[in-house]
């Protein structure tokens, strides 16, 4: 077993454990903190995949932005003595659905892995990615910025007291 494979297994186990705490944890604040750990694990896997820019973005936006936003919302909404039941009435059905999805996806993955080329990756992906975002993907780039603006205005209007 190579070092890379060992690191991958460590990161994967860490990420899946944290994700399981997010999904199954009784305490919502603890679930949010576990979500931070899960995002950090995925950022480590991005580094393993040599996507350094995406790893940085993952830490900045998911860990630094979205999780903090979630924690704010949790503190604004959760009552101290909240309900003890965290799952709804359809837990068994959902478990069957989730397990079925996992089996289906796993079967599809193991059945149809495309031919992998062993060519080395780009030496540095960040400059290429930046160039591509402003040339090949200029239109989606602008569209997504309009989407962000609209989401920001919408969030302000929805959350405003009036």
């Amino acid at each position, binding site marked *: 077993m*190579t070092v*890379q*494979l060992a690191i*991958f297994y460590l990161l*994967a186990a860490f*990420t899946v454990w944290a*994700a*399981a705490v*997010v*999904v199954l944890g009784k305490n919502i604040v603890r*679930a*949010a903190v576990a*979500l931070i750990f899960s995002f950090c694990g*995925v950022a480590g896997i*991005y580094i393993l*995949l040599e*996507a350094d820019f*995406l790893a940085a973005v993952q830490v900045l*936006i*998911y860990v630094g932005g*979205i999780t903090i*936003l*979630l924690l*704010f*919302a*949790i503190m*604004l*909404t959760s009552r101290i003595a909240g309900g003890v039941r*965290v799952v*709804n009435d*359809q837990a068994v059905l*959902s478990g069957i*659905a*989730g397990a079925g*999805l*996992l089996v289906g*996806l*796993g079967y599809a*993955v*193991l059945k149809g*892995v495309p031919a*992998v*080329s062993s060519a*080395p*990756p*780009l030496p540095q*992906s960040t400059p*290429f*990615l930046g160039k591509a*975002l402003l040339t090949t*993907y200029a239109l989606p780039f602008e569209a*997504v910025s309009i*989407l*962000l603006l*609209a*989401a920001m205005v*919408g*969030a302000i209007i*929805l*959350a405003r007291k009036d």
Partner: protein
Amino acid sequence: MVPLHHYLILGAILFSLGVFGALTRRNAIAILMSIELMLNAVNLTFVAFARYLPQTQLQGQAFAVFVITVAAAEAAVGLAIVLGLYRNFRTVNVDEINLMKW
């Protein structure tokens, strides 16, 4: 080098966990967290393909950037809706919000 299907299986496990959470949790914020988990799993799959199929290298990473952007927008709007719900119903448990059910 780690084989490609290791990453794909990890993405599948994370996605299935997210689906299970989104279907079962009662707290609306926990449902949002499960959705973020699913988006993250998809991103992981994109980046893995981007690394192992070099002719798609930039497409995969650029698409992941767009997915992250949409996830941020979704989290902001979703949490604003949750705050609005809490203001009107004093609860964020989605199975207690049944105004339009009969």
